[in-house]
């Protein structure tokens, strides 16, 4: 029983992280209509930016370092748009796919160049979690849940209560019609990158706080985010949230039945299943 509760909690924690990744991914897809394979590297760089700011010679404490780390991630996200994706705005999907794949390699190898391929941590000593009804949860994990809930609430307010957020949804429906009615599409697209980058950076930082950092961390989690996105319907923000939760839970509950070594295979399995059942979601036109 305790083991089951612990697995559910672990599933929710993983689900929060996946949801943060998947929502960013799906936002970019919705507004710009392409799958950004380099989204995983925004996640990874977010975590490494925090590492950079917390390590010597800068040595900031966590609460001072995470805002500049998110700022750097946002600048990186905007930079990739400005220098790579914006010049390719009129290009076809295959070109964009390959460009984002190339960018993903470049950014991953860039991190490896500076910090090496080895696993790093932020250097907090491992503390015993608090225990409730036999379930253990660390303060970092509490932070994961709080941050995720706050993010979702802010996103809701942004998309349904603010003009900018509504414009983002409009651009996601139709870029051409947005231009026709006079929405500033350039500003809206830039803002979409800001939101997606912040979600990626936050998710990456939370993930690294809970586990560790390595240059490949974005790639494997991007696959989970893909699976979540497909599950929730590509371009659908709340679907991505739900999909992330489902993937996190299924993965961690699956461990009860099969060996933890196959954990990642579950997300892949879901993704392949979704592609077989709804093959048009990735490449076809969205409804």
């Amino acid at each position, binding site marked *: 029983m305790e083991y089951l509760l612990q697995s559910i909690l672990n599933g929710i924690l993983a689900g929060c992280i996946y949801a943060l990744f998947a929502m960013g991914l799906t936002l970019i897809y919705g507004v710009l209509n392409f799958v950004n394979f380099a989204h995983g590297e925004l996640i990874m760089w977010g975590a490494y930016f925090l590492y950079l700011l917390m390590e010597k010679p800068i040595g900031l404490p966590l609460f001072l370092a995470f805002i500049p780390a998110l700022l750097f991630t946002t600048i990186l996200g905007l930079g990739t748009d400005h220098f790579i994706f914006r010049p390719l705005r009129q290009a076809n999907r295959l070109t964009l796919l390959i460009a984002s794949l190339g960018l993903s390699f470049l950014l991953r190898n860039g991190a490896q160049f500076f910090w090496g391929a080895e696993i790093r941590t932020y250097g907090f000593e491992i503390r015993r979690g608090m225990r409730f009804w036999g379930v253990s949860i660390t303060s970092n994990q509490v932070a994961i849940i709080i941050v995720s809930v706050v993010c979702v609430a802010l996103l809701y307010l942004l998309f349904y209560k603010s*003009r900018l957020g*509504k*414009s983002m*949804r*409009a651009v*996601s*429906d*139709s870029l*051409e*019609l*947005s*231009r*026709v*009615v*006079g*929405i*500033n*599409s350039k500003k809206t697209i830039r803002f979409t990158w800001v939101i997606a980058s912040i979600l990626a950076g936050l998710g990456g930082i939370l993930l690294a706080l809970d586990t560790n950092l390595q240059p490949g961390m974005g790639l494997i989690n991007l696959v989970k985010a893909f699976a979540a996105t497909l599950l929730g319907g590509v371009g659908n923000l709340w679907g991505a949230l739900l999909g992330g939760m489902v993937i996190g839970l299924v993965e961690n509950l699956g461990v009860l039945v099969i060996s933890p070594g196959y954990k990642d295979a579950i997300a892949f399995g879901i993704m392949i299943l979704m592609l077989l059942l709804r093959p048009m979601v990735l490449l076809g036109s969205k409804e």
Partner: protein
Amino acid sequence: MRSILDVQNIYSGYGKIEVLHGVSIHVEKDEIVCIIGPNGSGKSTLLKTLFGLIQPRRGSILFFGKDITQAEPEEMAGMGISYIPQGRNIFPSLTVKENLEMGGSPIRHAKTIEQAMASIFQRYPILENRRQIKAGSLSGGERQLLAFAMGMMVQPKLMLLDEPSLGLAPKIIEEIYEEITTINREGVTFIIVEQNARKVLRLAHRAYVLELGKNRLEDTGEGLLNNEEVKRLYLGG
């Protein structure tokens, strides 16, 4: 008197394909000008070019004497030109109210948007009843009305309509045309592109016939309705 819109010798098209080979039109204040012609004559391309969605290769477009040949579509609504495209002309996943808000995108103050929306709702109570419904679930006629109302949000001086009757029932087409006439009397100038020429020629003050991307004829709506050649070619005898 200076024309509202003065279009001189426009060449325009998509990629390597040139669709318009030197089209000229002019539109006077408070006119309803209709553009008819067979499929592929460049009617829709002309509207897109006027609105800046396609950059013309040659020629000039003056709006109240101001050169807008190079202007971007985002700037048009703010200058008082609304364009209602054919087909996808609403945001299906946004509610009716949000669609109207998007129609008011160039308006800076939220208060002004609310006032504009209130007057739209007064004019079209059906949209007010449906304001919380996703626009994607509206009927064809309601969609067209919403698209039209979105264009009205900025209180335009000139409205460009691309086949407003496309796919609608005859009764609804009548209603839409009647509405166009009413708004025209309130001082809004119209350019209407139509395949369905007979009906629109009755309300048009003046009309152009395009053929293969060139001006073919120009006359009053009445004149074209009675023109034997137009009757034979475009009005089905």
